[in-house]
């Protein structure tokens, strides 16, 4: 290689690198200012006592000690974990069933209609959906209990029961999000080569074996994606609870995010709220890492 060409190449490489930085610049600045900077700041605030008016005072681990003695925090974490587990299981099970059923060689028009109908609620703000369901779920004047009564059932305290209301939140969440997960599964199922299934059928595999041995591995990536999305989404549950129950009865439906917002922006205990935010961050981080670990050993790569 001629030295002149080498220099030319080096210059070109330098120019390409410069362009690269310029192109990613805005996104990286956004990341520093609105993600990383605030993340570092929230860590700092979590060691302070701060009411948003007078300057923060360093308090060491006091906020973290308070985490362990706060009964309300324990309750809101319990609720949130129930939301996460229930949402992951229910959304994915129903979505998989729906996707499998839709994927039964139905007339194309029907597939299209069903897919649209199930998917539409995922596009509507959870606020609006919760407003509608709140009216439907009224104990004594709502539609759902009216129909329950009509078929001889007992009225259910959908919104005002310490044991039931949590599940009402889960029902509304599942109802809204099942269509999105279904869509992903339908896309993944369409990619499973029919030849593979037919070959397995010829080998005498039943539908269950077929599903377990062929389908699940082939769509493992979609499962992983859906689970990740539902976990992260369920940890952030907020507006549906605000509208449906406002956290009640008592604290029985309050989510971690609601509690965090209450401590930060109602009680102005910024330091303690920051410590709660850190726990939320660590838990989401942990859950994601665990999922990646599982994925590495389980997800099937093409």
């Amino acid at each position, binding site marked *: 290689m001629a030295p002149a060409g080498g220099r030319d190449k080096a210059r070109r490489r330098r120019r390409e*690198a410069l*362009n*690269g*930085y310029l*192109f*990613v610049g*805005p*996104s*990286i*600045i956004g*990341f520093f200012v*609105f*993600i990383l900077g*605030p*993340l570092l*700041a929230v860590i700092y605030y979590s060691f302070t006592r701060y009411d*948003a008016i007078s300057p923060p005072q360093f308090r060491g681990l006091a906020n973290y000690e308070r985490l362990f003695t706060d009964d309300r925090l324990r309750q809101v974490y319990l609720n949130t974990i129930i939301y996460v587990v229930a949402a992951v299981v229910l959304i994915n099970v129903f979505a998989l069933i*729906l996707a499998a*059923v*839709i994927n*039964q*060689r*139905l*007339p*194309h028009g*029907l597939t299209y209609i069903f897919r649209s*109908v199930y998917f*539409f609620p995922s*596009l*509507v*703000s959870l*606020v*609006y959906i919760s*407003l*509608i*369901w709140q*009216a439907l779920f009224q104990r004594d004047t709502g*539609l759902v209990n009216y129909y329950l009564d009509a078929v001889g059932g007992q009225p259910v305290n959908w919104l005002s029961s310490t044991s039931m209301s949590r599940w009402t939140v889960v029902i509304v969440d599942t109802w809204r999000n099942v269509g*999105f997960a279904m*869509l*992903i599964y339908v*896309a993944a199922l*369409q*990619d499973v080569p*029919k030849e593979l299934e037919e070959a397995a059928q010829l080998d005498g595999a039943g539908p269950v074996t077929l599903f377990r041995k062929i389908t699940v591995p082939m769509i493992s*990536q979609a499962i992983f994606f*859906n689970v990740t999305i539902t976990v*992260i989404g369920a*940890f*952030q549950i*907020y*507006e549906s609870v*605000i509208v449906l129950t406002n956290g009640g009865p008592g604290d029985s439906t309050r989510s971690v995010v609601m509690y965090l*917002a209450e401590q*930060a*922006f109602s009680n102005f205990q*910024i330091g303690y709220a920051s410590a709660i935010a850190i726990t*939320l961050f660590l838990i*989401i981080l942990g859950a*994601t890492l665990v999922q990646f670990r599982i994925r590495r050993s389980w997800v099937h790569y093409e």
Partner: protein
Amino acid sequence: MSNAIAVGARTTRPASRQRRARRRVRPAAIVSVAILTIGALGMIAPFVYMVVTALKTAQHAYDLPPDWYPTEFNWNNFSAAINGPLPLLRNMFNSFFIATLTTLGMLITAPMAGYAFAHLKFPGRNSLFVLLLASLMVPVQVTVIPLFLIMRSLHLINTPWSLILPGITGALGVFLMRQFFLTVPKELFESATVDGANAWTTYRLVALPLVRNGLSALGVVTFLASWNAYFAPSIFLNSQDAATLPLALVLMRGPFSTGQLNVMMAATTMAVIPALIAYLVAQRWIIAGLTASAVKG
């Protein structure tokens, strides 16, 4: 990596459709349709209830058994919602303004970064990309306190900018666009570079048009996410003139306001209809955008 995008972008596969058409109707298919129909009714019913109630008078708003088709047409509810306790049209405009500017910003920053991460070589490219991806694990709920303090010191509380500024960049958009750019063969850009076009021209004239589908998908998804957002607006906007539509509807229901069910449902109907129109018009890109993010990183 790339084929999942194709999955998302593609809605039908000609070959399998033909195979389907050749089959006879099987009992399993009938059962499937029955199950799906029952489920679909459950998905539609709440929206039907919403529309029917939005057209009722206050006297009949709670009638049981309910009507499943409109029996009265009290259009006044819509004007009552608009002229009611909250400046609803203004709130709608606020939502629209925030969502539009956020989307435009995202459509500028994300494709640029996506292109660079896909096709330009520069030191630290991979670690920067991983760093950016890691921010997907930092939801706004974790950083909301410092964000509030930043917006406060910039005097942006109660202005749309408190939501637009953090919204115009984002890892998900970069990630999505990188995936779309990776499906484009590198040779296409390289030939342009050899022709002497500078990087910006290559990007604008060659690269961007090739990912038009990706841009549509990113645009629609960003717009919807912003249009539907509740958490951050509820923290940053606290006057009713600055409120976005979801905030306004929650306020409208408050115990000290009229909060009448039929008017509430009229307001909710007005809020849901844009999503419905967007869906009907842009279904293809919405589905492409959402399924494209289902790709492994």
